[in-house]
């Protein structure tokens, strides 16, 4: 499988986005364009999978574009093939979904031209094989997604979201640029092949790692660089949110893996330590903040932060093991991380699609105004439930498998020689477990408040099921979640070449294991069989149902809710999202969220309702961003006085510079 066809596909996507400019306003344009995007993504997906399973050698090509003396190089190896597959799987799903939901866009001409370009950019990022092409595609990806975020520019706060996003993105790009500058050296060997051979000192390597964490991390949403993510992802149209959360963050992961594992050469153990630590913190903070949200899409966005943390835990372990020459363990950790990359793409896209469907049906993102949608939107509610179970890392779905693998990797960490790692690894394991449990709590909340209970608003009561395309997309993803959950062995085997290419080691082949269960190291040590678990649960559930309906009653009576004898007709008395989260807010509360609860209780006899207002703020804003912004504003205010000087004062400036230079000259030699 050579690169050229894939590039052709990407180019076709770009052409599509140009064609979209005139077509966008046509009524049929929507279906045509998204349909074509779907077809192209499918083709690219096919190419990537073909390369993965055929295990072909890396292929590369050099186009006379980009930096003149280097050209723009593209390379397809196992790693890029895997991420290419992830990207285009997400891309196809989103396009399919958009064939239905895209029609509801108020201003399609602000979405359609950028959507295919966005897809193309992500494809090019994973294919690029020299620094310039990589960064070009990378920043172009940011640019197009920014344009898509600004598609709903009229909504309140979206401009702010887009602004924070684009600035953070450019910050990240500049950081990566510096990293590449170091890797390339003053000679300017910008192609990756040269960088692989170019040896760097440990100090430089550390600097590069830091810069990559800043660059790729800000794109992926590592705490505290995550602040843009929960603003920007929800602001975009839902299928784009899905792409940004599910796919674009993966491009960021790809960047990290490519640079740190491939270009940077042998890691040192503390790099693993840092990455591990960041991952753990990110995972827990992400989910904690997610718990406090009652905007459905923002909640999902914060969960992206959490899952990125989980992936980084895996990557950190892989670094640590590799630095100590524990190949098998490193391969296990790496597989876990990459597996989670795939999983997160699947269920996060699914969930964003669901949120989009809800948004379309009710016009609401605020969970406090939703509820009871399970009755009017049965299919959506079912597939959304699948997504919730998957993201909560519960068997038998896919989310559990990757976290299980991560746990298995952590259990190997006592063999690490360094104390810091010995202590850090289990601690992060605890955080991982915590975040998993909290995720479950959070999705009980999200699903329970949105789809269950009684409708909290007219819109929710009037909601209708979403269209066929969206349902098809969501169902496809749900099925994939299940498949990846009960047949993980195949995914692990497909990841083999990738880990092999990164850390000359791969997990044992799983396809041969009996009953298709997965065995990371040895069966006596640990094994898991999603298929059997699923079969058992299904079987015993049906068994129980059959027995009960056969031998016991089948009678059923509908009646008003019992509610301990005090049934209240008003839906307002239900548990709301924030009340559901209240116990956890109490537990982790004030320190992490800066949560402030204020009750103002009117005096007795006063008719006004008492109200409780809770404010939850993101620490990162408080501690980092606000001061920076204030500082910049302060400086520019001070400097701004220079705008209002008189000519004489300007002359004095010139004069001063002249005298200064003359003094320098006089004191020369």
């Amino acid at each position, binding site marked *: 499988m050579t690169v050229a066809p894939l590039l052709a596909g990407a180019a076709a996507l770009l052409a599509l986005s140009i064609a979209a400019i005139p077509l966008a306003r046509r009524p049929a344009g929507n279906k045509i364009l998204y349909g074509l995007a779907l077809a192209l993504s499918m083709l690219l997906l096919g190419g990537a999978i073909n390369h993965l399973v055929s295990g072909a050698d890396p292929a590369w090509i050099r186009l006379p574009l980009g930096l003149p003396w280097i050209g723009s190089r593209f390379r397809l190896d196992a790693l890029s093939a895997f991420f290419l597959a992830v990207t285009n799987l997400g891309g196809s799903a989103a396009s399919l979904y958009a064939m239905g939901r895209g029609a509801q866009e108020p201003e399609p001409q602000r979405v359609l031209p950028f959507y295919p370009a966005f897809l193309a950019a992500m494809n090019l990022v994973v294919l690029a094989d020299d620094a310039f092409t990589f960064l070009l595609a990378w920043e172009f990806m940011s640019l197009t997604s920014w344009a898509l975020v600004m598609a709903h520019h009229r909504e309140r706060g979206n401009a702010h979201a887009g602004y924070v996003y684009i600035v953070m993105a450019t910050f990240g790009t500049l950081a990566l640029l*510096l990293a590449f*500058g170091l890797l390339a050296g*003053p000679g*300017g060997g910008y192609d990756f092949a040269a960088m692989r051979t170019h040896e760097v000192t440990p100090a430089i390597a550390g600097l590069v790692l830091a810069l990559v964490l800043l660059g790729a991390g800000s794109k992926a949403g590592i705490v505290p660089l995550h602040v843009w993510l929960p603003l920007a992802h929800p602001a975009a149209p839902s299928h784009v949110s899905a792409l940004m959360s599910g796919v674009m963050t993966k491009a960021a992961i790809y960047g990290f893996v490519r640079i740190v594992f491939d270009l940077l050469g042998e890691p040192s153990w503390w790099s693993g330590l840092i990455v591990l630590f960041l991952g753990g913190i990110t995972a827990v903070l992400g989910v904690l903040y997610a718990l406090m949200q009652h905007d459905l899409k923002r909640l999902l966005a914060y969960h992206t932060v959490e899952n990125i943390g989980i992936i980084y835990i895996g990557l950190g372990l892989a670094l640590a093991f590799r630095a100590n020459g524990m190949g098998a363990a490193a391969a296990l950790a790496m597989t876990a991380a990459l597996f989670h990359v795939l999983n997160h793409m699947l269920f996060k896209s699914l969930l964003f699609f669901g949120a989009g469907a809800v948004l379309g049906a009710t016009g609401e993102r605020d969970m406090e105004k939703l509820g009871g949608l399970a009755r009017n939107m049965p299919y959506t509610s079912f597939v959304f439930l699948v997504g919730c179970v998957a993201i909560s890392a519960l068997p038998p779905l896919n989310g559990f498998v990757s976290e299980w693998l991560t746990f298995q990797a952590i259990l190997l960490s006592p063999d690490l020689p360094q104390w810091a790692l010995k202590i850090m690894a289990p601690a992060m394991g605890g955080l991982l477990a915590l975040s998993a449990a909290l995720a479950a709590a959070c999705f009980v909340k999200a699903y329970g408040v949105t789809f269950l209970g009684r409708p909290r608003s007219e819109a929710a009561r009037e909601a209708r099921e979403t269209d066929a395309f969206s349902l098809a997309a969501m169902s496809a993803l749900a099925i994939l979640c299940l498949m990846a959950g009960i047949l993980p062995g195949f995914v692990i085997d497909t990841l083999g070449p990738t880990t092999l290419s990164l850390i000359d080691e791969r997990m044992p082949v799983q396809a041969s294991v009996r009953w298709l269960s997965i065995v990371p190291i040895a069966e006596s040590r640990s094994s898991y069989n999603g298929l059997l678990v699923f079969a058992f649960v299904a079987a015993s559930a049906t068994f129980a149902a059959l027995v009960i309906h056969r031998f016991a009653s089948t009678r059923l009576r509908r009646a008003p809710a019992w509610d301990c004898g005090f049934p209240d007709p008003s839906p307002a008395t239900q548990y709301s999202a924030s009340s559901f989260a209240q116990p956890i807010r109490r537990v982790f509360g004030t320190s992490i969220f800066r949560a402030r609860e204020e009750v103002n209780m009117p005096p007795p006899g006063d008719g006004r309702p008492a109200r409780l207002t809770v404010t939850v703020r993101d620490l990162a804003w408080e501690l980092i961003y606000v001061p920076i912004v204030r500082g*910049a504003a302060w400086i520019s205010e001070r400097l701004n006085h220079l*705008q209002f000087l008189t000519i004489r004062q*300007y002359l004095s400036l010139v004069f001063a510079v002249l005298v200064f*230079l003359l003094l320098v000259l006089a004191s020369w030699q």
Partner: protein
Amino acid sequence: MTGAAAWIGSNGVALVLAIPFASAVLLLFLRGYRLSARLNALSSLLTLLASLSLLAARPAASDYLLVDDLNIVFIILNAFVGFTTSLFSASYIAHELEIGRLTGGHLRFYHAMYQILLFGMNLALLANNIGLMWVAIELATLTTVLMVGIYRTHEALEAAWKYFILGSVGIALALFGTILVYMAARPVVGEGPNGMVWTVLVEHAASLDPGLLNLAFVFLLLGYGTKVGLAPLHAWLPDAHSEGPTPISAVLSGLLLNVALHAVLRFKLLLAANPEAIAPGPLMAAMGLVSLIFAGFMLYPRRDIKRMFAYSSIEHMGIIAFAFGMGGALANFAGLLHMTMHSLTKSAIFFAVGHISQAKGTQRIDDIKGLTVSHPLLGWSLVVGVVAIAGMPPFGVFMSEFLLVSSTFARAPLLALLLVLGLLVAFGTLMVRLHALAFGEPVGRNERVKASYVPMIAHFALVLTAGIYLPAPLVAWFQHVAEMLH
């Protein structure tokens, strides 16, 4: 036919100078707006063609005029932007006439001055004699002063006056520098005009008196640096840009700054060729960095859209000066590329801004909102322009900044960090304003304008292409110039 071609080929230089001058004289006496606008565009086009002919046949250097790899880049760029701007100015000035901001008398003057300006700049670029170069630059400055003040408003006059005074002092300093160069050269080259011929000077550069050269460079850097708009000599620039007619802002940002920069580069070459003289690089790099960061912060509190982009020009001039100051193949290449890209992009932005301010009837940023809604084409061109000038792909500025930042970081990490800081600040501030300008609900009056989109789109197309693909000959040429600049 071929004879004509040959003739043009042989007299390219003369034409580049003669066409603008002649048409200036002609325009001074020509009545009727439409005709003079057309003539203006036509002669600019002819100048462009003539300058292109320089590529084909390059005349030998005379004592007064010179065509070499360095200035030919500038000349063609100059002629091209001069031509597109003349097209833009046709539609812009038409609107100014309708709303009566300008009268017929002003117009004759305006067009004549426009051509004189082109003439002056071409002369300054072609000059092989540093005295001649000085005279030409003074000429260009005076013409722009007159054009900045053309609206006769309080602000316009103040801007023109500020520009005039600061410019004159700059000119004076530059002249002193020129004299010093001559004095440095005299003992070697001997008395008489030869002591001012650049090619001769460069030949003997190694044997010139280093001390005098250093002193000279200080004065020249300050003198011509004032024209380049390097902080803290920049004071005239924002006002001149914001108060003059927009075509002039475009030409100022796109061309005049380059011309001054070209002068500085010439003398940098001279010093670089002399082993004992101080390295001019650090001076330029320092001033460039200061300008970059200063302008970055100054962008934020701006309320006037043209003034904001004027500051952005200061910022980019800083980047370019920094690049040439750093020197080395990569940085010089980046500098040249960046200069070209900046000229094209910034002038295109001014085209857009000109029409926008005409459509909204104001230059106040607060009174301009939601352009992509009210004027989609203008609004999106503004978005494209700002995105391009802010250094985002797939536009050319991205490539130059990529090269500059990465190569600098490998050589001088701290400087690179400062550079990145400046870039980030500038980016952030530009984007704040862009969000307010281009998105959200439109406010204020939304007149349709008869805008000329061709120049804008042409510039953007070029910048876009350059960002993705640079043709090999251009690259080779730039690389040669980069070599030349050390």
